[in-house]
């Protein structure tokens, strides 16, 4: 076991000593700070509700929105939504919370697709690069089975995803705190969801929002890892994995008329469908999707293992 930890340490060192990994983190940092600047506008508006007269402010705003709607039909959709939200606050006697670090983190959940992208790049390179550098020959002539080396590389990819995810969360939170302040440790806000407006815990939203996307992340990273093990070439693995990640939904809808479409990986990676209670295809359930995902996952890993451990390491 200690042996395995040493291998993990090697892989992590190789990953974090490289400039390209640092560039990834710098990219995330720049994006988060940029988003904080953009969010400043919305935050200022929320400030108007922070005094004793917040009910009056909301009512005034509704009246103004109503007036605007009468003059200009174009604003109808957006304004109705806004009025409904304001009414929810008034009806339930909830004072709108000012924008804060927690909400900033919650809104940044789309950054997880960036984390997925970076994880795919890392997963695609972790085997292929050893071949590219030629170091694979020195790596594999140690008294360690190839299975163990492969496992250390795979776990290393997952660790990278975990660290990067934590970095996005923590860095967003600190930048958010710096820009917008913090509203206690468990703030609640009103959110518009399919079933109407709901009053929810932001932290719960963060866990749900990030957590559900993790499934796609892990599946696509494992897929890129497999391609990398088969072709020993990172650009191909990155290309295929990113293409599939982006076109996943299109692929599913293209084959939607066939009965086997529900077995396509991408029909099952989106867990929102069970949260919202509207599965993509008839006959799909959470259990069904988890089973399909598990089967794909095992196949990806098994193929990686076969190609990595059974094949000769020949010349270039």
């Amino acid at each position, binding site marked *: 076991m200690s*042996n395995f930890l*040493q*291998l993990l*340490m*090697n892989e992590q*060192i*190789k990953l974090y*000593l*490289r*400039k390209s990994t640092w560039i990834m983190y710098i990219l995330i940092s720049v994006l988060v700070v940029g988003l904080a600047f953009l969010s400043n506008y919305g935050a200022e508006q929320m400030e108007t509700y922070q005094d004793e007269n917040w009910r009056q402010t909301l009512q005034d705003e509704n009246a103004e929105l109503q007036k605007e709607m009468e003059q200009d039909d174009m604003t109808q959709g957006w304004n109705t939504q806004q009025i409904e939200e304001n009414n929810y606050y008034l009806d339930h006697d909830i004072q709108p919370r000012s924008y804060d670090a927690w909400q900033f983190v919650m809104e940044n959940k789309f950054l997880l697709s960036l984390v997925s992208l970076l994880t795919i790049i890392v997963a695609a390179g972790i085997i292929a690069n050893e071949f590219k*550098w*030629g*170091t694979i*020959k*020195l*790596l*594999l*002539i*140690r*008294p*360690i*089975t190839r299975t163990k080396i492969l496992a250390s590389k795979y776990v290393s990819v997952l660790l990278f995803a975990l660290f990067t995810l934590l970095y996005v969360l923590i860095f967003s939170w600190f930048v958010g705190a710096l820009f917008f302040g913090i509203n206690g440790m468990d703030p609640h806000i009103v959110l518009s969801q399919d079933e109407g407006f709901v009053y929810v815990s932001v932290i719960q939203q963060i866990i749900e929002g990030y957590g559900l996307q993790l499934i796609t992340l892990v599946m696509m990273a494992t897929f890129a890892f497999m391609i990398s093990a088969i072709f020993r070439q990172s650009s191909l693995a990155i290309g295929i994995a990113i293409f599939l990640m982006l076109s996943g939904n299109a692929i599913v809808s293209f084959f939607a008329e066939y009965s086997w479409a529900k077995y396509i990986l991408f029909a099952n990676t989106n867990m929102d469908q069970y949260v919202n209670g509207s599965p993509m295809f008839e006959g799909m359930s959470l259990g069904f999707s988890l089973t399909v995902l598990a089967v794909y996952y095992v196949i990806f890993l098994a193929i990686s293992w076969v190609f990595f451990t059974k094949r*000769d*390491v*020949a*010349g270039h």
Partner: protein
Amino acid sequence: MPETAMELINVKKTMSNKEIIKGLSFSIHKGEVFGFIGPNGAGKTTTIRMMVGLMGLSGGDVRILGSSIKSDYKEAVREVGAIVENPEMYPFMTGHQNLMHYARMIPDVTKDRIQEVIKLVGMEKPINEKAGKYSLGMRQRLGIAQALLHKPSVLILDEPTNGLDPAGIREIRQYIRKLAKEENVAVIISSHLLSEVEQMCDRIGLIKNGEMIAIQDVNAAAEQTTGVEIQLEVAPLKQAAEILKSDFDIHPVTADHTLNIKAERETIPTIIQTFASHDIQIYQVMITKSTLEDKFFDLIGENTIE
């Protein structure tokens, strides 16, 4: 009989229906330097890859200190240190970080041992620079250092003199001899240039088209009697040439300051004695071409082992 370090038993390799290695059998003893010579494409690197487990065997077995690379991989490979083809290092890590990386993969490699191998290959100075900046010679040395970390019984070096200048080759030659002698390591050196490794090897195996054509003891070959080429630096040249013709029936080729002759090795002392008795000044007597090279050229059936 010296102890066997590594043994190849009828090793075969078939790739895409073509037999590349056709049943190699030989063994290497502890403390011996074995030259594995053959033209490019003869199967040297393929054989080496099979010796260290990078490629599977299509037939036969490789045993290292009695452990089979097939059934007892971990035990077998623990006793092997190797460079396969070029000594590739992680370019973004320093020499020291590279060595640490490999040290973590083997139990019981101490910090002291790492310093020891760094010193052995003379890499103290550039060890904290990025390996990407190293010259080929430095990478070659670092490659040898990583191969020696765990004190292996068998050291395999694939073309270790590739890309090295003559000074570098001489240095490598020195510590390979030292390793064999002092640490009782069995060293296998592959090369396509006999002349580069001849002087550091005890035995030489010649491989061609996946077959071992001959295995030759280097020292025994040097003692063989059939004609060698001798260069004599003597003065005056003319008188010396006359003596060779009249007393030995040898017709020398005269160069600037030397006479080149072909003769039996045994006649060298007699020639020197005769020269001395005629007051000819002898500056140097040298065998210029070994019988071994001739022999191998004959076996390969070409003029060069390139």
